[in-house]
């Protein structure tokens, strides 16, 4: 999507944090010298364009619960079906097709590791495929934001 100036400034300024106060959008507007309505409109437009997932927290995995990265080696002709089976589980997010024999990669998150084990077993049973379970052992960089510098 094409980003107007306000959207670009909102993203650059508030990806990493925003004012946690009673009227955060008004506080953001004051920082960017525009109206609260303009901030809310810009965010709604970004959301409609599917460029904004949400306004909120990214939880710290180790504090918030359990998570793991999972890979499946799916025969090409079964990809759509298996991706849909996997997506049915609410514990699944960020499910991507990648160029490798292990071609379906997704993240599982849950309140406890036991629930992850349960979902892995369910996915194995539903798909007949053996999941690779690759939990994070150590994070060397965790920042999920990124600069808009070279955005079209």
């Amino acid at each position, binding site marked *: 999507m094409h*980003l107007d100036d306000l959207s670009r400034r909102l993203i650059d300024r508030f990806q990493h944090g925003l004012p946690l106060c009673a009227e955060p959008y008004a506080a953001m507007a004051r920082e960017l010298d525009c109206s609260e309505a303009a901030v809310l409109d810009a965010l709604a437009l970004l959301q409609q364009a599917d*460029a904004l997932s949400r306004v909120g*927290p990214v939880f710290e995995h180790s*504090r918030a619960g359990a998570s793991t*990265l999972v890979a499946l080696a799916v025969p090409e002709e079964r990809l759509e079906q298996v991706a849909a089976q996997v997506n049915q589980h609410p514990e699944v997010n960020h499910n991507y*097709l990648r160029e490798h024999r292990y071609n379906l990669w997704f993240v599982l998150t849950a309140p406890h590791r036991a629930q992850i084990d349960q979902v892995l077993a369910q996915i194995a049973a539903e798909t007949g495929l053996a999941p690779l379970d690759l939990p994070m052992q150590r994070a060397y960089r*965790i920042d999920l934001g990124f600069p808009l510098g070279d955005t079209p």
Partner: protein
Amino acid sequence: MSPSLDTAQQLHLRSLLEVGLPLHSQPFAVLGERIGATQQQVLEQVQDWQAQGLFRRFGLILKHRALGFRANAMLVLDIPDALVERVGEQLGQTAGINLCYQRPRRLPHWSYNLFCMVHGRERAQVEARIAAILAAHGLQDYPHRLLFSSKAYKQCGGRYAPQQPERACG
């Protein structure tokens, strides 16, 4: 003073935060209505969680594909155990690498133990950037692969709190 929400309200609030703040002038008041609490109670709880480090960040969470970052590579490397910590720290501090995690090998199926994410607009640009990073750190001779993503089947935030009916994600 510790926040005054009970455990059920805290769990409910966490599940609502995972979906995101409403685009409303007073979003914490709206969340308060949903969980039977005041705006002030909700704000204090969120600020408390922030101070405790429950959140990695609290802000705008974007979908990189819609913003033009269509070339997204997962770089995986097989680094000897004795070196992986040093290499992880080097790569984690390198500009252009968004995530750098150590994960277990699953032999004989999977031998890579270090995972990095690199986002860019063009595939060739990402490939060149990664080649330069590997060369700069003398890593080009360790086994490694670039797994570009060609399709997103699902892209949403983690659901750590127990299930609530309103929390579907497509």
